């Protein structure tokens, strides 16, 4: 059995601060981490590797420094790591990203593909389903538990807003996982020590041969018109008055944040 795990290295957004003067994000000094939802995808694959002797291949798309994340994957016992990296792929939206990832996955022909539900930088949750569409295979998103794996199918729990659904799907298929699915194991010393002895396969567009209209910034149907940060005010509004006024003030502050 061959399992591909799609992973992304992302800035640790919980550490991010807003520059109050310029209203932009301060990115310097922010760590790069494995995208949280992807960690459970990787753990799920590693567990199946142990129970079903599967081969686990991690594929990431990103700048060259994403290789550090792949070394950490080797440190956890991954069999093969692939970095898709080319300036031609840069600036891609989810449509162009999934074209690129799908082309790389086709070279591997996996039985099962795991991806994190969404990345904490883009928060789109679109790449997984779009890769599945490009590969013309079934998908199950929002997977919160793996119930059973056989040689040709997997049964999982899918998490909806207020109920869970247990579904069985045949290979090949793509699953997107929630962070709570599983807790990623630590690296182990033996594998980490050997991580640098294993090559990371680096794929550029000379390998994938995709047309420029399908990849990168140029191939992206969506464009970012502008970005901005929510204005932050540190001027405290002190409300004395009675509780009606207090309730009104809290309500107007709270309302935009309610889901």
């Amino acid at each position, binding site marked *: 059995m061959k399992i591909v795990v799609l992973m992304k290295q992302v800035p640790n957004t919980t550490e991010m601060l807003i520059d109050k003067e310029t209203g932009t994000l301060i990115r310097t000094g922010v760590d790069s981490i494995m995208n949280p939802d992807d960690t459970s995808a990787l753990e799920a694959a590693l567990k199946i590797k142990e129970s079903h002797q599967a081969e686990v291949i991690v594929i990431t798309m990103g700048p060259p420094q994403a290789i550090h994340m792949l070394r950490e994957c080797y440190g956890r016992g991954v069999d093969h790591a692939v970095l898709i990296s080319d300036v031609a792929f840069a600036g891609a939206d989810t449509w162009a990203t999934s074209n690129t990832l799908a082309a790389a996955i086709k070279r591997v022909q996996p039985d099962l593909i795991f991806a994190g539900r969404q990345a904490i930088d883009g928060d789109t949750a679109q790449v997984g389903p*779009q890769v599945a569409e490009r590969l013309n295979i079934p998908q199950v998103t929002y997977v919160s538990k793996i119930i059973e794996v056989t040689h040709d199918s997997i049964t999982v729990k899918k998490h909806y807003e207020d109920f869970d659904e*247990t579904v069985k799907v*045949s290979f090949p298929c793509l699953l997107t996982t929630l962070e709570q699915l599983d807790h990623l194991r630590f690296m182990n010393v033996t594998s980490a020590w050997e991580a640098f002895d294993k090559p990371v396969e680096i794929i550029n567009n000379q390998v994938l041969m995709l047309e420029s209209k399908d990849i990168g910034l140029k191939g992206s*149907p969506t464009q970012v018109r502008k970005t901005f940060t929510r204005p932050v005010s540190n001027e*405290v509004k002190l409300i004395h008055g009675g509780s009606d006024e207090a309730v009104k*003030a809290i309500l107007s502050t709270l309302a935009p944040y309610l889901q």
Partner: protein
Amino acid sequence: MIKDIFVFIETRSSIIAEVSLQLLSEARKLKQQYIQKGMQHDVVAVLPGYQVESLTSTLFRFGADKVIICQHEKLKEASTQHTTKALSDIIHAFAPDSFLIGATVIGRDIAPRIAARVDTGLTADATIIEVDMTSDSSLLLITRPAFGGNLYGTIVCPNFRPQMATIRPNVFEKIEMDSEDKEVVHFETTFDKSDWVEILKREVQQAKANDIAKARIIVSAGRSMAKHMDLIKDFAQTINAEVGASRGLVETGVLGKDVQVGQTGKTVRPLVYIACGISGAVQHTAGMDKAECIIAINSDPNAAIFQIAHVGIVGDAVLILPKLKEELQKILN
């Protein structure tokens, strides 16, 4: 002719999802903006399902000018495979200018697949949609949070149609109006005979404790609230928030150390931190001063917490919270 705003109507057991009605009403506002630009875009509700004719008049009441209904046994439950097929075929047949889908689990499951299938751009989890009044095109400006809510981006899709977006539930209001039933178009298409997935079981979720470090909203209480924990917990539940605590409150034993915020507890960075009866010692504020919005309720006007709060209420949380909860429930329903 590419025109009109299509809205996906999500149903479950023949009940229309709230977000779908909210989107119809919002699409109505977009229609008005287009009229200001001299453009005519109708609001079209797209209703896949099985035996769902009875729902159409509701859709007209919340803003639809037209309903496209696609009925098939395969569409009885929302299905990645079959709903994607139905909506993609409708897009090919009717060439809408835009297509809005609620950012529910189902919406975020099917929308990306549809966008990939019809080869267009999709903006995820949007919170604001406006018509671009500066150009003479039908371009939509779709704004969404990214980087965990730290940054907002306005996304456009200039060269491909439909302009697709998933929209976060509850950011728009549903507005009911007097309306008669209008045009209902029945659309038929073919479906795969075999299903990709086999649904084995459905079960209602059980509530479980969450990690406050990951909470979007935290309602936190100080030592003086020890006797009013029911009130705090009840209020937190109303707004889907987690409960946090000062060191003083944890020491009274009413809450565990795992929810203690501060230097010796957890560091949290929620979007909203509501501090109830917390004085604001540095020990505590060191763990929460990065919250995007801090609302402090304290009866001492000189409490240190007011120095870092964005909204400060001088008053007694025990009196304010029940009223607040009452008002919130009105909004949330």
